[in-house]
């Protein structure tokens, strides 16, 4: 039992205990020597008592230290530690007894020195057993401690300390004060012995083992105690070490706590399976709630669920129906063969149908059935509901009639709910991951689409130009471009696909392709629209159309030719008149009339332009942008802003328009449509330079 201590305190206390014990032995031997030789050794009893107390204290510290290091040990190991020390101490005592028995009446058997030596060995081992076991009991008593228990224990320790010194007061007589002290200590022991919270945590097997160990402790305690009693009757020991209040109280304490533990463990045996069951349920519950990691699949959650339900209900068989496409697919067959399952499913088909119809999915309670089956007598059907939808049901069967009680149904319901939540979370999590991937894809689409818009706008020195586009979603349906046909002929174009988002973005790409190829044909604006309509009619989906505006600028003749296909009219500011107008001539959107009739619905108009004239092309996203009050930005705001700042550069005008638009919509307001803007300012005289 004596372990080699690793740390200095352990070694020191061990060494000290040994030295004190040797001193104690030496003092007694000297005393006996004196007695035999009729010499007065001059050593008073007090010296022995002091050494004895020192010995107790050293052993106490040694074991406190040793237990501190082995704190994580489980209960069974601790009880075993006590039992093994007890067996060891008793064993040695027994061997000594046998030794003397074998010696019989020989001279050696009567030798006082030898007797004294063995007496000291027994005393030391018993003390070690008592103190170490008392400290083990302390750990057990203080398991799940309350403040009150800690106080009681401290009082007990204090009383024991007093008991150590009691010997100075009563000079080792068994008088009333001794009995009084003993009774007080025993009462405290009995109170402390009520703290047995560690016992329920032992499982069935551990309980049996601990019963055995406790029994060994009780037997050792009783045996060592009888030995002590025998010593106190013997006359040969000059100074009695064993009639000590401290030791006798410890005997009482250890025996009482051992007895209580033994009895409580014994009576706990039959119910221990219930406690274990509850513990398993708690662990299962935990496993279910943790099983939502994305890499795990639903099968694993259902697997845990089935295990949990089986163990909670002691079911003899079970399976799980998964609803998929209006059909029940059985999975997770437990202790049932396909034939049994089929026959059971047939019997339960009608009651389950009625049960499902009886109430809404969320209010479905488990269905407890009596079965008319040759093997199974009762069944329990538990629904699995995820997101207001029944995704399946657990079917548990038992060979006994009415095999599912209220408690089982309660816990199984909780399990299935928890599993449903786990499945739901699992699905949501996967969906979130999927969504994230879509977001990534959209970001790529966004980059691709941005590259469809020109980074550089073709223009000569005779006009300045700038443009801006913003999509309501990641991608949008607005498009603008410029194209130099010849040195003096430039085309400006702006288009807007109806709707927004991904579908609009795809059409926008088609529009760019068609526009780019048509531009190179050097068509008149109206012809351009007619050709564009014809081409787009073949590729636009049924309810989509495109509006577009085209300007053909001739820097030589200082003329612009314009055609409008359903697009919001362009603002044309005439610097000379300091006035602006919206170019609202007839023109049907592209893709609306998908036949030759379109030719009748498009016009073109030629205008002259002069120094400082401004063109502002935009899409309906700007006109229809709404503020908090639901008012639209409208055409007139655009007009007045341009008329207020005719001397500004296109870039400045564009910024003013966009800033005003954002102010209008409001700080956190969103513009719910794609919007684009292109501003052109003419300086025809630059050419002459």
């Amino acid at each position: 039992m004596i372990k080699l201590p690793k740390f200095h305190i352990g070694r020191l206390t061990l060494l000290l205990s040994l030295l004190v014990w040797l001193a104690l032995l030496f003092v007694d031997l000297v005393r006996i020597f004196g007695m035999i030789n009729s010499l007065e050794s001059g050593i008073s009893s007090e010296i022995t008592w002091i050494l004895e107390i020192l010995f107790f204290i050293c052993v106490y510290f040694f074991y406190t230290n040793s237990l501190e290091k082995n704190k994580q040990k489980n209960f069974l190991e601790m009880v075993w530690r006590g039992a093994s020390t007890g067996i060891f101490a008793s064993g040695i005592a027994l061997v000594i007894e046998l030794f003397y028995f074998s010696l019989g009446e020989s001279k050696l058997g009567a030798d006082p020195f030898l007797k004294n030596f063995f007496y000291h060995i027994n005393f030391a081992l018993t003390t070690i057993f008592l103190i170490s076991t008392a400290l083990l009991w302390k750990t057990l008593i203080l398991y799940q401690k309350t403040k009150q228990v800690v106080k009681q224990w401290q009082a007990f320790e204090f009383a024991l300390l007093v008991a150590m010194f009691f010997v100075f007061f009563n000079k080792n007589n068994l008088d009333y004060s001794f009995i009084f002290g003993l009774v007080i200590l025993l009462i405290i022991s009995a109170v402390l012995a009520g703290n047995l919270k560690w016992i329920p945590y032992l499982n069935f097997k551990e309980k049996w083992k601990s019963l055995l160990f406790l029994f060994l402790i009780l037997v050792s305690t009783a045996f060592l105690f009888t030995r002590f009693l025998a010593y106190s009757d013997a006359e040969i020991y000059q100074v009695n070490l064993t009639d000590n209040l401290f030791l006798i109280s410890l005997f009482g304490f250890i025996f009482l706590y051992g007895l209580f533990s033994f009895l409580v463990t014994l009576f706990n045996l039959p119910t221990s399976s219930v406690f274990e069951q509850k513990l398993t349920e708690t662990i299962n519950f935990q496993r279910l709630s943790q099983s939502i990691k994305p890499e795990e699949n639903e099968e694993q959650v259902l697997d845990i669920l089935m295990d949990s339900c089986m163990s909670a209900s002691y079911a003899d068989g079970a399976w799980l129906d998964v609803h998929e496409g209006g059909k029940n697919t059985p999975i997770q067959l437990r202790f049932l063969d396909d034939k049994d399952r089929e026959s059971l499913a047939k019997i339960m088909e009608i009651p389950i149908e009625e049960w499902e119809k009886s109430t809404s999915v969320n209010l479905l309670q488990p269905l407890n059935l009596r079965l008319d089956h040759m093997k199974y007598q009762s069944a329990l059907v538990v629904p699995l509901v995820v997101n207001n939808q029944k995704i399946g049901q657990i079917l548990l069967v038992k060979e006994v009639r009415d095999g599912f009680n209220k408690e089982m149904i309660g816990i199984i319901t909780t399990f299935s709910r928890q599993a449903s939540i786990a499945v739901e979370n699992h699905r949501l999590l996967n969906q979130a991951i999927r969504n994230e991937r879509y977001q990534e894809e959209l970001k790529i689409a966004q980059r691709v689409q941005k590259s469809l818009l020109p980074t550089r706008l073709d223009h000569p020195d005779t006009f300045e130009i700038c443009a801006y586009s913003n999509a309501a979603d990641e991608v949008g349906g607005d498009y603008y471009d410029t194209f130099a046909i010849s040195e003096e002929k430039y085309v400006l174009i702006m288009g807007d696909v109806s709707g927004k988002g991904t579908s609009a973005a795809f059409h926008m790409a088609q529009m760019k392709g068609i526009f780019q190829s048509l531009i190179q044909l050097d068509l008149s604006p109206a012809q351009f629209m007619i050709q564009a309509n014809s081409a787009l009619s073949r590729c636009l989906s049924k309810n989509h159309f495109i509006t577009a505006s085209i300007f053909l600028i001739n820097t030589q003749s200082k003329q612009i030719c314009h055609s409008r296909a359903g697009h919001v009219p362009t603002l044309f500011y005439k610097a000379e008149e300091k006035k602006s107008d919206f170019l609202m001539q007839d023109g049907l959107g592209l893709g609306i009339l998908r036949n030759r009739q379109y030719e009748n619905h498009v016009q073109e108009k030629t205008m002259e332009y002069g120094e400082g004239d401004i063109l502002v092309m935009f899409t309906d996203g700007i006109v229809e942008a709404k503020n908090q009050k639901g008012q639209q930005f409208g055409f007139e705001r655009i007009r007045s802003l341009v008329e207020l700042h005719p001397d500004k550069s296109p870039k400045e005008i564009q910024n003013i328009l966009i800033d005003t638009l954002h102010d209008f919509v409001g700080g956190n307001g969103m513009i719910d449509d794609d919007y684009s803007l292109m501003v052109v300012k003419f300086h025809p005289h630059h050419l002459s330079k």
Partner: protein
Amino acid sequence: MLRLEKTKEDLHDILSLDGEVDASNSVILDEAIQDLVQNGSRSILIDGRNLEYISSAGLGVFMSYLEEFQEKDITLKISGLSPKVVEVFRILGLDKLIPIYPDKTEALAK
């Protein structure tokens, strides 16, 4: 928000629109018109007195039926639109393809 109401007056099916038509609810409008077509309607009047706003997606719905109506000889008329909404139809050029009347009685009379 869009509320739809279907009524019948003589041989005309009247579809009253109340609220706004945008990308989120243009499907409802589409389904309503499709319903009327399937029920063999010969004349559909869209009553837009309470129509506050129509987006390009909403216009797309009307546009998508133009050809089908022409083939099946179904007449489509719109009435009672506010000036702002009429402007939207005008800009796109749809007013040239779908007759738009100031009020319902006038629309039904013609």
